[in-house]
């Protein structure tokens, strides 16, 4: 049974190739942009998450802090759900870090002894909004001498600025991408609606004959719905494939440019999983788009009669 509907749908596509091309083109464009926006949203989220959760807070310990006091504070910090990756850095390790940082000038390293570096507890926060509260709490600890942010981004304020800006950009990407994709989806929907309405008008005589010989509504609608499903499936496949190839092609350059920042997964499997999820969601969206477009067109034509 499906064969006759599929054959009818394919016949109608063949009979009006330019309408079919228009529908496929606009759907491909929609799903191409949707795929890129999805990846952009993923990358910006990763970027934001990276800066929000990288090691940030260093609690410098007093020289007289005992091992048990340090262990007790470390344990409390580790059990705090706002905090992750608590790491104890001893005086010796601090010296080693300093020597490594000044390796291009070994004399600087030789001039210092471990005793001048304080031991510290380093940790990151799960969300930057927790940072100030945690810092204030840790500052009040008896074994803590002072608290600071890692200097990688230039200190506490600049890190918050960067994260703030990233948040704004991420929001823009999400909303802007969503709105742009939405406009394209609406254009696709309208084009599908127009093409299917034209199809139904062209098929008026055929529908009348089918009605007279006892065809059910489902029988009459099936080729129309199948036709839109073909458009959306082909549109998803073309749009997604082009976007996938583009991202695959540019991934090495992007990863190298962003360095440690995981804007894209480094292993192929994870990348494939992300694209697989996007493909699945686009297929579902394509089915919804084509079903709603064709059913609305059918109901409009029925009302017009």
């Amino acid at each position, binding site marked *: *049974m499906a064969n006759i509907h599929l054959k009818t749908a394919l016949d109608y596509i063949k009979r009006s190739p330019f309408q079919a091309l228009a529908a496929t083109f606009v759907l491909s464009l929609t799903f191409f942009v949707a795929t890129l926006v999805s990846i952009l949203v993923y990358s910006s989220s990763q970027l934001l998450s990276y800066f929000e959760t990288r090691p940030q807070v260093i609690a410098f310990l007093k020289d007289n802090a005992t091992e048990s006091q340090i262990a007790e504070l470390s344990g409390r910090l580790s059990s705090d759900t706002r905090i992750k990756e608590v790491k104890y850095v001893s005086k010796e390790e601090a010296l080693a870090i300093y020597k490594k940082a000044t390796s291009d000038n070994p004399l600087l390293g030789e001039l210092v002894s471990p005793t001048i570096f304080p031991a510290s507890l380093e940790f990151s926060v799960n969300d930057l909004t927790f940072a100030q509260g945690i810092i204030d709490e840790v500052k009040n600890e008896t074994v803590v001498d002072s608290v600071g942010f890692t200097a990688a981004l230039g200190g506490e304020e600049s890190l918050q600025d960067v994260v703030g800006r990233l948040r704004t950009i991420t929001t823009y990407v999400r909303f802007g991408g969503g709105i742009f994709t939405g406009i394209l989806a609406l254009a696709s929907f309208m084009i599908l609606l127009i093409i299917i309405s034209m199809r139904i008008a062209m098929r008026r005589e055929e529908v009348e004959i089918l*009605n007279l010989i*006892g065809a059910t*509504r489902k029988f009459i609608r099936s080729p129309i719905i199948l036709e839109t499903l073909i458009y959306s499936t082909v549109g998803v496949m073309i749009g997604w494939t082009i976007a996938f190839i583009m991202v695959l092609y540019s991934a090495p350059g992007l990863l190298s440019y962003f360095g440690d920042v995981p804007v894209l997964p480094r292993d192929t499997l994870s990348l494939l999983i992300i694209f697989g999820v996007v493909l699945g969601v686009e297929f579902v969206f394509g089915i919804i788009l084509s079903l709603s477009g064709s059913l609305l067109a059918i109901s409009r034509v029925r009302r017009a009669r």
Partner: protein
Amino acid sequence: MVKFKDVTKKFGNVVALEKVSFEVEKGEFVFITGPSGAGKTTILKLILGEILPDGGGVSVNGVSVGDLSASEIPFYRQGIGTVFQDFKVLPERTVRENVEVALAVIGLSQDEWDGRVKHVLKLVGLEKQIDLFPRQLSGGELQRTSLARALVVNPKILLADEPTGNLDWETSDSIMQIFEKIHKEGKTVIMATHNEEIIKKYKKRVIHLVGGRMNNGKHSS
């Protein structure tokens, strides 16, 4: 099998049928005749459930057509074969596909299509034209295609609305012979026609309509 009881149908102020009553028995061949506008096609449309009566009732095999819901109508029509004056074949489909579509509509398994299609095309004499498109067929062949599509679903009733209206006498006669053959196989045939020569040659019961009313004097022949 088919029962009209005091059926009245109006289109606006125009009375198409007025208190028409008749019965057609199973296996009967009946002509509905009368001049243009007499109500012949209206009777067929009422049987097919295309329109509903304004008064009275139409029942087919004990089922009141007016009581059928919109979703029941297609299944009801699947038991009725219909042949039209203007053939109503699908222009973009071959003869085979035009007949197959009726089988697809009733949901018959595709394995059975080929045998049924060939059998019915042989019955109407269109075996050689099986893969031709309607534009490649003559009027008579188009009517045979329409007839084959109506017959392939093995309907209980065959309705024909002026099936020879667009055909010359020879072709009309050959089409009528097929109807006669089908009737002899036990099918109920209700044919609307104003072709007096056919009515005279094929002596069947005649329901004569004039201005939407039955002319009792010419009720049967």
